[in-house]
């Protein structure tokens, strides 16, 4: 049991990086970006192909990050320059990436068994494979959270936040909203691909299909994190995301352990997210009732 939870935590830490990427588009930019489904697999594909062909795993991971950024850039250009609605722009890039990822790997999946990954160096220090993933995941997540906390406090980061919050106001304050949206998409997809590359290395396996449903997993983690761990301030939000991603993995590990067939996982996740996203609607139904009881306008 403990083993399962520890496994869920280390996997959750790797998915947390993806969750932070989803948060940047979904919450900060107010865009549902489906590019992530392609860029997570792209991260895996790039890292798998590069390591398989003898590249240093750290450089390969960095390359995966850059690849994700390029994917975000494509969506950004489709959306801001060619004026394609954000959702559709993301879908286009996602579909295109499916072919691109197949080209990168040359086939639908690639095994990394017995090949050195970024985790191997920690394992060489005497850590168990799972502990190596956990330590590396923790350090990466801490670094990314710190970096983003700094970045979104800078002038440029504030401009991105204003763009997502109220683009009209942002333009009236001289902010180039198109550039800010593109920059946000670039950072987000870079992180998602980084996450994909680490996930692939931890499971010694990359698959072009691995992105399917990942946006929903990201959203589920965002919402679980926000509901359970709060959104008091930006740092709190970021930490909530990480804890949300871990919680999601623990929940999944639990329901699988309780005997839910693995094939039903995506249905389970989709229902969870649908309920969480529809909570505001239920609240508006409840509001008049509450008002008639308390006599207060909420």
């Amino acid at each position, binding site marked *: 049991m403990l083993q399962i939870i520890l496994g869920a935590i280390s996997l959750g830490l790797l998915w947390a990086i993806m969750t932070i990427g989803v948060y940047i588009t979904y919450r900060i930019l107010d865009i549902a970006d489906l590019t992530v489904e392609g860029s997570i697999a792209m991260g895996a594909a790039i890292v798998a192909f590069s390591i398989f062909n003898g590249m240093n795993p750290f450089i390969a991971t960095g390359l995966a990050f850059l690849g994700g950024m390029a994917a975000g850039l494509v969506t950004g250009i489709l959306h801001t320059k060619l004026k394609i609605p954000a959702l559709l722009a993301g879908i286009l890039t996602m579909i295109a990436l499916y072919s691109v990822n197949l080209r990168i790997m040359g086939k639908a999946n690639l095994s990394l068994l017995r090949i050195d990954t970024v985790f191997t160096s920690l394992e060489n220090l005497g850590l168990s494979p799972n502990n190596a993933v956990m330590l590396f995941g923790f350090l990466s997540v801490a670094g990314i959270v710190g970096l983003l906390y700094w970045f979104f*406090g800078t002038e440029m980061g504030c401009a991105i936040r204003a763009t997502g919050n109220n683009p009209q106001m*942002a333009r009236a304050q001289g*902010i180039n909203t198109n550039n800010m949206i593109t920059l946000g998409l670039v950072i987000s997809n870079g992180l998602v691909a980084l996450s994909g590359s680490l996930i692939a290395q931890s499971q010694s396996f990359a698959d072009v299909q691995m992105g399917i449903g990942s946006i929903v997993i990201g959203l589920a983690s965002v919402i679980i994190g926000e509901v359970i761990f709060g959104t008091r301030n930006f740092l709190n939000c970021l930490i909530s995301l990480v804890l949300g991603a871990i919680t999601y993995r623990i929940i999944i590990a639990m329901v699988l352990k309780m005997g839910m067939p693995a094939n039903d996982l995506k249905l389970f996740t989709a229902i969870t997210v649908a309920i969480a996203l529809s909570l505001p609607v239920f609240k508006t139904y409840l509001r008049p009732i509450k008002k008639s009881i308390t006599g207060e306008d909420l």
Partner: protein
Amino acid sequence: MLVINGIHKRFNAGTVNEKIALSNLSLTLEEGDFVTLIGGNGAGKSTLLNCVAGVYPIDQGSIIIDDIDVTKLPEHKRSAVIGRVFQDPMMGTAANMGIEENLALAYRRGQFRSLNWGISNKEREVYKQFLSQLDLGLENRLNAKVGLLSGGQRQALTLLMATLKKPKLLLLDEHTAALDPKTAEKVLQLSDKFIKESNLTTLMVTHNMRNAIEHGNRLIMMHEGRVILDINGEEKQHLTVENLLKRFGQASGEEFADDRALLA
């Protein structure tokens, strides 16, 4: 200061919904002019302000601000020299960001957004000072999310943001229309104060004829995408609402079609 040369703006060109919103409109504002702009519903007042601000491209003509032709400049670039307050109090501020964060965004209007920290402690003192001029107690709530403020507070804050970094041109589009009369009066007083203090060249749309007469040094009336009245100086000081309505009738050949203005 502002020179508008024969601009033309058509919406939905070539469709059944085609609408000429501005038709060969020319207008020149001198440095320090405070112009009030009135006109019936659909006269093209908002469209004019939006064209000057770069929200919509124009079909013909040119717009020159302080000797610089801005006709082809995108909205965010023009914002470097233009301050704006909109009719909708939600539109001028970022609701999820704090009061000081909103002010800091406005303080950097027209500047490159660097990787320096978004707000300095020195600025905070400046903001506190400005906020206390609003007399709304906001100076003690620098970190409060703007979404928590009332419409009037948000509009006062937007006004401060529009003038914090002195703009060459201030555009106010019915910025008190959504407020209750008392708050509207207060925001209007503040506008007057900021405009006078910094001698801002201003174009203020209002549907309230009395406000249009009492404020500013020049009054312009629009009808069907054109300027039909332009009154300033001595003549403006002696204007009355009846007088203005009569002159509107003479100039346009129609009755003034704006219920709100007549009731006000």
